[in-house]
């Protein structure tokens, strides 16, 4: 091998505390080093040209650059090598700036250290091999999981860009939480008025295929080439023919079923369309309530259906789709406040959740927008809002802030005053978190303009007294215990990860935190990417998000997908693991520890089990290399021999000749 060593002065950044010419001179003695030099700015145009010329002139097949951090300029120098016709992986860098010149003033010791870092780099380089990227096709279709506002936005952006979109929605209609909300903060405009048109766009867009009442069963493959199985749950209604006329709902005798869309504050029929603006507007039978499905008697809906689309024999259906990218926008669920025994454990009819309250206020809700107590239908005059129910409370395993409760509580308090002008509202809060455009002004308006009384303190107990409730809590500002009598108590429940989110994460081979929220590839710099290439995130599946953030992330994820799809072929990073089949004993421990599912079991010609790396899925972490007891699976560019060469260069005693 013929190695060239380039020691950069970085102006005086390195040269001030490292004797660069001495490092270059000493490096001449290293094995296989045939050329060394020191340059003022190696990364500059002339500096790079010097490398290129030296490669050609001295017939180099490997280069060590001693300069700044590889995190800074590795890509730069790799390109320089390529321009000179060398493989980009025949470069090693010695970080003599951040790790040497900038952290020590002793020039003599710095110089020794710099030389030794060059030695390590050269020792590793002697074990480097040219690596080549594989090219593969991209299926330019995207799967969007979840039809909430984030998913809708992502789907519409991708579809508008001309890509096919497959949207999978677990519920009967898309729209998500936003569809249930009455008004949005801080503008207090009608939620369904702004969401509705987008939902219609989804239904009508020629590039979008929507599967409602469906869930992702399985995802296999890798970026650009995912095979997705979708389970389309039985609705007992042939949706191709259903017109959403609602005739069935009118005649259905089973009318006491849980109305999930209305958060359980009202009942609905067994065959149902959840709300008038539902997309798709199709009826579905709840098998738990349907007399025909339970007892084989009834069938009224089938009789009244004008298109004869009722099918009691319908079964779940598995569909397969090929996509190149996945956007997960599975949203969140509401915290179940029944764990709070002191708040009545969900047993008091007039202690309700904030989302139930939204349905009470909503004109399309069960009360037609009139606020009525669930217990007796009376209009409440005193409404107490309790914040941080299931937020910022380690005792219930929810130490995080759900972020948006402060805002919606203020909104609900304001709306309460709008609906019932002679009412009084009280809010128990811990802190008011209102960062955002117009947010703080909004909470202030609730207090100052609408006279909502904010009490800073936790509520310790709610108990019924006569036909109303006593809310006992602390007022930490006044330093007293307070008791407020309420006709209705609204618990501002926090957000938690969607049910089954961990299971879905495992299907997508992405990670999730201990609360079940999906992990982004980097919380700051890669907020919508995951560690699995081709899988992106949007909205509250990552953590509680308000509407504008969710919409923004939907667009961001769509933009990532479009970037991915802008290429006809993808290149896989060759710094991935590779199995030496002749050493592999097929124990498959590597496959068991791979976080990405990048290792599969194969059988060789002799019938022996071997491990094989799916190069496009492998992310190059090297966990497998450590797991493999035979050292048969090696992470390219960071092989055992490469790292051992570095260790030996540092520690091994040199034999006297």
């Amino acid at each position, binding site marked *: 091998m013929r190695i060239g060593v380039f020691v950069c002065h970085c102006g005086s950044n390195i040269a001030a505390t490292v004797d660069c010419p001495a490092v270059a001179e000493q490096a001449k003695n290293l094995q296989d080093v045939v050329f060394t030099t020191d340059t003022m700015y190696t990364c500059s145009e002339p500096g790079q040209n010097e490398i290129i010329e030296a490669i050609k002139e001295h017939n180099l097949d490997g280069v060590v650059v001693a300069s700044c951090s590889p*995190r*800074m300029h590795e890509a730069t120098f790799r390109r320089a090598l390529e321009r000179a016709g060398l493989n980009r992986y025949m470069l090693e860098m010695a970080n003599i700036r951040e790790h040497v010149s900038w*952290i020590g003033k002793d020039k003599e010791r710095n110089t020794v250290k710099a030389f030794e870092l060059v030695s390590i780099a050269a020792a590793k380089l002697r074990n480097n091999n040219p690596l080549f990227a594989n090219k593969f096709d991209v299926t330019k279709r995207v799967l969007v999981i979840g039809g909430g506002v984030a998913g809708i936005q992502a789907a519409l952006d991708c579809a508008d860009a001309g890509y096919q979109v497959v949207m999978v929605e677990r519920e009967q209609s898309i729209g998500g939480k936003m569809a249930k909300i009455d008004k949005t903060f801080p503008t207090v405009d009608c939620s369904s008025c702004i969401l509705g048109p987008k939902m219609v766009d989804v239904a009508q867009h020629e590039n979008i295929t929507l599967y409602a009442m469906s869930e992702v069963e399985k995802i296999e493959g890798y970026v650009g080439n995912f095979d997705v199985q979708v389970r389309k749950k039985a609705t007992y209604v042939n949706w191709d023919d259903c017109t959403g006329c609602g005739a069935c709902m009118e005649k259905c005798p089973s009318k006491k079923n849980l109305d999930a869309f209305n958060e359980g504050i009202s009942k609905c029929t067994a065959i149902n369309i959840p709300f008038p603006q539902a997309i798709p507007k199709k009826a579905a039978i709840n098998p738990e309530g349907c007399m025909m499905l339970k007892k084989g008697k009834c069938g009224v809906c089938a009789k009244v259906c004008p298109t004869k689309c009722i099918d009691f024999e319908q079964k779940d259906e598995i569909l397969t789709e090929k996509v190149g990218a996945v956007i997960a926008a599975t949203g969140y669920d509401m915290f179940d406040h029944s764990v709070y025994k002191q708040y009545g454990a969900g047993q008091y009819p007039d202690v309700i959740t904030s989302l139930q309250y939204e349905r009470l206020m909503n004109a399309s809700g069960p009360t037609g927008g009139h606020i009525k107590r669930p217990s007796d239908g009376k209009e409440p005059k005193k409404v107490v809002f309790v914040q941080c129910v299931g937020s910022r409370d380690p005792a219930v395993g929810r130490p995080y802030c759900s972020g948006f409760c402060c805002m919606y509580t203020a909104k609900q308090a304001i709306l309460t005053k709008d609906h019932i002008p002679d009412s009084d509202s009280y809010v128990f809060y811990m802190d008011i978190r209102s960062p955002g455009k117009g947010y703080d002004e909004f909470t202030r308006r609730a207090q100052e303009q609408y006279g909502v009384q904010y009490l800073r303190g936790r509520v310790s107990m709610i108990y019924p007294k006569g036909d109303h409730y006593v809310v006992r809590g602390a007022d930490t500002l006044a330093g007293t215990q307070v008791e407020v009598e309420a006709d209705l108590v609204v618990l501002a429940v926090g957000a938690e990860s969607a049910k089954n989110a961990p299971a879905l994460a495992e299907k997508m081979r992405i990670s999730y935190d201990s609360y079940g929220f999906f992990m982004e590839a980097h919380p700051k710099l890669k907020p919508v990417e995951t560690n699995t290439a081709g899988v992106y995130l949007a909205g509250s599946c990552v953590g509680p998000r308000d509407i504008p953030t969710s919409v923004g992330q939907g667009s961001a994820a769509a933009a990532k997908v479009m970037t991915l799809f802008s290429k006809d072929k993808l290149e896989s990073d060759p710094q991935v693991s590779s199995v030496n089949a002749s050493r592999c004993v097929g124990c498959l421990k590597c496959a068991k520890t791979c976080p990405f599912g990048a290792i599969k079991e194969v059988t060789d010609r002799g019938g022996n089990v071997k491990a094989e790396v799916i190069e496009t899925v492998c992310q190059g972490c090297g966990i497998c290399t450590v797991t493999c007891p035979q050292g048969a699976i090696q992470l390219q560019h960071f092989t055992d021999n490469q790292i051992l060469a570095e260790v030996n260069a540092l520690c091994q005693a040199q034999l006297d000749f």
Partner: protein
Amino acid sequence: MSGSTGLLTEGQDLRIVGFLCNWCSYGGADTAGVARFEQPTDLRVIRVPCSGRIDPLFIARALLSGADGVLVSGCHPRDCHYAEGNFYARRRLEMLKQFLSVTGIDPERFHYTWVSASEGQRWQDVVTSFTERIRKLGPAPKMSGGTGYDEECLKEIAAAVSLGEQCPCHKEKA
């Protein structure tokens, strides 16, 4: 095999080998550099993609070959670039850490920790305190000697060879 030590000049710096993951700790060390946080010069860093790539045996190899200390750092648990690498690393490294004592290699010579890319200050603290610790411990005892001809034997050989041709019974045959 006696011979000069590896690269590190004896007497001056100690041989401290660092294994740093590319995404967090190597970045943290860079951050410390950018901020000009002064550190002892003894540490030599080997960059690996992930702490999950660090085979405890690399550390064993370094310590057996004569390293005075080994410092490993990765992303904080939960912040692994590869999601799970440092979770595996934590278990593997902890096992080694606790095991070392039985081999007679002072476990204090090995330390593993977590430093994020933003924690330049912390990196400085980690390097400084670890280097101080190793300085206190001094150079590590070295493994030497082969089978058969052991240390004692080598001395004997030297003595015998110095006698050379004086050896009475060999003169005959020569």
